[in-house]
């Protein structure tokens, strides 16, 4: 079949997504979950809404929802590579796990994320046997560099920041390659938020500019040099710099705490993608739905963990992400 017959506007897919959006948990469900007295009551409420299928344990339910999301997307979009942007970070987390596992000569079950672009076992094997060329092309160099570095110095933190940076760069590249405005916006906000978090943590722990230059991924929304200079000067300078960027509204949250800033950034992405609810054509609505589901699953995870640890309803509410619907 020639390319011209393929539904480039994803009309069928978007129509299915409209239905799937109906099953997203809305604010009122989260209110009930927050007010629930314990995890068991939360699970009952979630099960009522069809969340988690037949599973009745938190991990099982969350895992089921994740795989259900990607099964639906695989059914609707013939070429899943456009959504690599959402999964690449898991690949790089798998790479970190593989390097540490191999260097420490351990075999820890369950540390690899299955929701990744490349097969986690391929990454594990390639790193263990030092056959870096078998890794996905963009990963080969950083894998070799970090593996050798870890073996030589045992500096896990340095490896982590280098791999995190490579992940952010890969996300930006994948989004730009897709030419999909929604994915590009998502990637820029994600990388920008990650850079700011790194800069703040580095500032709080007194890291130098060399560390920051290694750790920060270039982001079109930020001037890395100015960010580094501001981070080295202190919180006030950092906030003053951010006032001139797309993250100016996040400054108040950043002054509160990193967790509040993180929540603000997640909410900002969901808010920016909210307009896709009224778009009937293209990958935009599908991308927005994936993100909405990922955020929903993350919110449920935060909520269940907080309930398990006996957090108050008020402190849980502060951590809940904005819902798409």
């Amino acid at each position, binding site marked *: 079949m020639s390319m011209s017959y393929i*539904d480039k*506007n994803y*009309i*069928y*897919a*978007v*129509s*299915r997504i*409209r*239905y799937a*959006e*109906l099953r997203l948990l809305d604010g009122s469900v989260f209110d009930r979950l927050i007010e629930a007295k314990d995890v068991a009551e939360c699970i009952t409420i979630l099960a009522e809404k069809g969340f988690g299928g037949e599973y009745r344990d938190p991990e099982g339910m969350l895992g089921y929802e994740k795989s259900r999301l990607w099964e639906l997307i695989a059914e609707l979009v013939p070429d899943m590579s456009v959504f690599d942007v959402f999964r690449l970070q898991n690949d790089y987390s798998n790479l970190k796990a593989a390097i540490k596992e191999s260097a420490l000569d351990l075999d820890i079950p369950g540390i690899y994320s299955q929701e990744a672009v490349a097969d986690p076992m391929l990454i594990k094997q390639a790193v263990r046997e030092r056959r870096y060329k078998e890794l996905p092309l963009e990963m080969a160099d950083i894998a070799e560099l970090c593996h050798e570095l870890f073996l030589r110095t045992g500096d896990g933190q340095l490896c982590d920041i280098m791999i995190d940076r490579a992940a952010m760069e890969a996300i930006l590249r994948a989004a730009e390659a897709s030419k999909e405005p929604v994915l590009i916006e998502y990637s820029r906000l994600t990388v920008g938020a990650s850079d700011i978090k790194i800069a703040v943590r580095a500032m709080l722990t007194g890291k130098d500019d060399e560390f920051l230059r290694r750790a920060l991924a270039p982001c079109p929304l930020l001037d890395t040099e100015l960010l580094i200079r501001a981070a080295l000067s202190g919180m006030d300078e950092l906030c003053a710099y951010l006032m001139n960027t797309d993250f100016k509204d996040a400054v108040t949250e950043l002054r509160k705490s990193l967790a509040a800033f993180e929540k603000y950034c997640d909410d900002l992405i969901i808010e920016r993608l909210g307009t896709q609810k*009224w778009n*009937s*054509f293209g990958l935009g609505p599908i991308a927005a739905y994936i993100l909405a589901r990922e955020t929903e699953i993350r919110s449920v995870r935060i909520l269940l963990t907080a309930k398990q640890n006996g957090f108050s309803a008020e402190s849980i509410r502060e951590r809940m992400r904005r819902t798409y619907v």
Partner: protein
Amino acid sequence: MENMGLLFALCGAALSAAMAGIGSAIGVGIAGRAASGVVTEDPNQFSKVLVLQLLPGTQGIYGLLIAFITLTQIGIMGGDSNVSLQEGLLYLVSCLPMAFGGLFSAVAQGKCSVSAIGLVAKKPDQFGKAMIFPAMVETYAILSLLISILSIFGVSGLGL
């Protein structure tokens, strides 16, 4: 050369049927994809989304009507087929509103139907309102039809 008038008039009829038909095919086609998506999830919505899918199909019928009237007027369907060059060109121009109006309005209506089908997917009880939005686009197809019909009958009344 003496049949050039007939040739131009026939071109008009052909353009009106073909272009409006192409528009409707595209419109009904894209609306059908959206409708399939809804029926996959909820087969009970079949009749509602079918109506919305068919809305962009009317332009093809209007185009056919204009082609049919033109063929009758120029005698292709029987009778005297003596059409002067001037008359033939006038028939061709008369068919153009339906040809272009039909093509573009059907595609636009199809896209609007896709969105309306999305609305029905989310709120099936709002079907009445969902139907009004694509039906609005129909206005412009009807205006094109009206001008084409008036022009064709006007040309035959000139007696050129």
